[in-house]
C-alpha cells in the first residue's frame, strides 16, 4: 500500500518538473497567443547546454544555471526577434496567426536535426554527478533526490515568473500586452520588445527545466519530442496562459504516469494521457481549472 504513496509522491515531484518544462510554453502562449511547436527543441537545447556546462566544468549540475539561464534567454529573445517577428508583422490583424505555428514547427525540425548533425544520435548522461541515483529514505519510502531538486526548482521558477509579472514594470507591460496588444501599444509599450522578452523568459524556463532533467534523464537530439507533446497536453489541461495551471497540469500527468503502471501497462498509461488531452480539448478547452490567465 505504501507503494502507492511512494509513487504518488514521486509522481508529484516528476509532475512539477513536467510542469516546469511546460511553463515556458504557457507563458509564450499567454503573451503571444501562439503555441510554440518548437518548445520541445528548446528544452533539448537547454539540456545540451546544461550537459556540456557540467561535463566541461565538472561542477554541480544546478550551478550550470548560471550559464544556462542567460544563454537560453538570449537564444529565445533573438529567435523570436529574427524568425518569428516577421510573421507577426505580416499577419498583423489575425488574432492567432497560424503561420507562426507552421514556422515554429520549422524551427523544431531545424534545431532537432542540426543538433543531430553536430552531436550525433547517441544518448548521453552525466555519470558521476552528485545527484545521480540518490534516494532519500523517508519512513520506508524512497524519494528520488534529483526529482526533489527538480520539484523545488519548478516551484521557485514558477514563483519567480509570477513575481516578475506582478511586481516589475516589464512584467506589467507583458500582462498588458497579453490582455490587449493594441491598447498596450497605444500606451507606449513596445509590442515586439514585449514579445521578445516573453519568448526569452519562456526559453529560459525551458533551460531551467533542462538543468533539472540532466541529472537523471538521458540527453539526445530527439528528447524534445516526448516533452513537446506532453507540454501541449499539460498546458491545455492547466489552461493556456496559466502558470499555476502548468505546474498543476504537470503534476496530474506525473501522477498518472507513476501510479498508472501499478494498474495497467505503461503504454496504456500513455494512452490515458492522450485520451485525457482530447477530452479536455473537446469539453473544456480553457483547461481543467478554467483559469485563462493567472495574472
Amino acid at each position, binding site marked *: 500500500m505504501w507503494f502507492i504513496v511512494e509513487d504518488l509522491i514521486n509522481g508529484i515531484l516528476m509532475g512539477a518538473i513536467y510542469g516546469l518544462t511546460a511553463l515556458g510554453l504557457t507563458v509564450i502562449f499567454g503573451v503571444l497567443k501562439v503555441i510554440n511547436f518548437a518548445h520541445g527543441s528548446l528544452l533539448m537545447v537547454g539540456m545540451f547546454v546544461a550537459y556540456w556546462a557540467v561535463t566541461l566544468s565538472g561542477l554541480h549540475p544546478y550551478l550550470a544555471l548560471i550559464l544556462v539561464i542567460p544563454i537560453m534567454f538570449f537564444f529565445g529573445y533573438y529567435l523570436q526577434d529574427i524568425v518569428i517577428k516577421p510573421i507577426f508583422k505580416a499577419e498583423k490583424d489575425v488574432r492567432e496567426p497560424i503561420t507562426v505555428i*507552421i514556422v515554429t514547427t520549422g524551427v523544431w*525540425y531545424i534545431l532537432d*536535426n542540426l543538433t543531430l*548533425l553536430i552531436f550525433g*544520435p547517441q544518448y548521453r548522461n552525466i555519470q558521476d554527478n552528485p545527484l545521480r541515483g540518490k534516494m532519500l529514505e523517508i519512513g520506508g519510502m524512497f524519494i528520488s533526490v534529483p526529482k526533489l531538486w527538480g520539484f523545488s526548482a519548478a516551484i521557485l521558477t514558477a514563483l519567480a515568473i509570477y513575481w516578475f509579472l506582478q511586481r516589475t514594470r516589464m512584467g506589467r507591460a507583458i500582462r498588458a500586452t497579453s490582455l490587449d496588444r493594441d491598447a498596450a501599444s497605444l500606451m507606449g509599450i513596445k509590442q515586439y520588445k514585449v514579445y521578445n522578452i516573453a519568448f526569452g523568459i519562456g526559453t529560459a524556463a525551458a533551460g531551467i527545466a533542462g538543468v533539472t532533467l540532466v541529472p537523471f534523464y538521458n540527453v539526445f537530439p530527439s528528447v524534445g*519530442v516526448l516533452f513537446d507533446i506532453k507540454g501541449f497536453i499539460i498546458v491545455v489541461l492547466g489552461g493556456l496562459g496559466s502558470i499555476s495551471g502548468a505546474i498543476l497540469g504537470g503534476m496530474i500527468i506525473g501522477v498518472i504516469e507513476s501510479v498508472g503502471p501499478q494498474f495497467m501497462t505503461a503504454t496504456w498509461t500513455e494512452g490515458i494521457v*492522450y485520451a485525457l488531452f482530447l477530452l479536455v*480539448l*473537446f469539453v473544456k478547452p480553457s483547461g481543467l481549472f478554467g483559469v485563462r490567465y493567472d495574472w
Partner: protein
Amino acid sequence: MTRENFQKLSAALLLIVSFGLPLVLRSPTYLHILILLYLYAYLTTSWNLVGGFAGVLPLGHAAFFGIGAYTSTVLFLQYGISPWIGMVLGGIMASIVGVIIGLPTFKMRGAYFALATIAFGEGMRVMVENIDYLGPFNLNGPRGLQIPPLNVGLANLMFVNKEPYYYIILIMLIAVLMLTYTISCSKLGYYLNAGGEEPEAAKALGVNVARCKLIAMAMSSFLTALAGVFYAQLTLFIHPKSVISLDLSFEIAFIALIGGRGSIAGPVLGALLLRPVSDFSRIYFGHILPGLHLIIFGTVLILVMIFQPRGLQEPLTKAYHRLLDRLTEKPAEKE
C-alpha cells in the same frame, strides 16, 4: 498558337513523358524514387482538400494512411481479401474515422485543431503499437505486419518489378488531381474556400461551413487511406512507426504548405521540389550529415512562410503566365 491549345499540348506532352518514362528509365532505384515522388504528390493533394481548401491545419493525416495500410493488410493476410477491395474498405474506415475526428475538432480554433489532430495521430499510433489483437484482427503491435511475396499479380496488387507500381500511382495521382480540379470549380469548392477564408460571411451567404468541412475531411481521409494500401503493397511491410508516424503527417503538411496549399498545383509542385532534395541528400549525405534534408525542409518552410505565405506556386504561376503570354497569342476577349 492560342494559349488554350498550348496548354492542352503541354498537358498532352506531360502525359506522354510520364507514361513513357519507365520505358527509358530502367533503373529500379530511380523508378522507386519517382514512385515515392508521385505518392507524396498524391498525399499532399489529398491533404489539400482539408488543409488547403477548408483552411485548417491537420497534422495527423498519417493516421488515415495507417488505417488504409492496416485494413487492407490484415484482411489480406487473414482472409485472403484482395487489396483492391481492401482499398475500398480501408477508405471507408478512414472516412468514418475522419468524420468522427472532424465533428468536434472543426469547431476549434486553428492551434487547438492542429493539436487535436496531432493527438489523434499519435494516440492511434500508440494504440496500434500496443495492441496485438483488435477483436479477431491480428495487428501484431510494434513488430508490424509482413506480406509474403507470393501470388503476385494485378489481382493482389503485388508485383516483382517496379513498373506496374509506377503506373498505378501515376494513374492515382492524375485521378486525384482531376478530382481536386473538379471540386475547385464546383459548389463544394466555392463553399469550402469561402468557409475557410471568412466563415461568418460564408454562413450568412448560405454556406453550411461545418458540413462542407466534414465532406472535405471524408474525401481527404478516404483518398489518403488508398495511398496507405498502395504503400503497404509496395513495401510489403508495415509497422506503426512507418505508417502512422508524426514525421509523415508533418512532411505531408510541410510540402503542401511550401508548395502552396489551397491551390491545385501547389502540393504537387511542393513534392516535385522537395522530394528530390530529400532523396538526394539522404543518398549522398546520409552518412556524414544525417537529417540534412529535414534541416533544409525546415529552413525552406520558414523562408516561404515569411516571404511567400501562399506558397511557391504563386511566383511560379506568375512566371508561367508571363511565359505563356510571350509564347502564345491571347484568345479573343469573351464578351
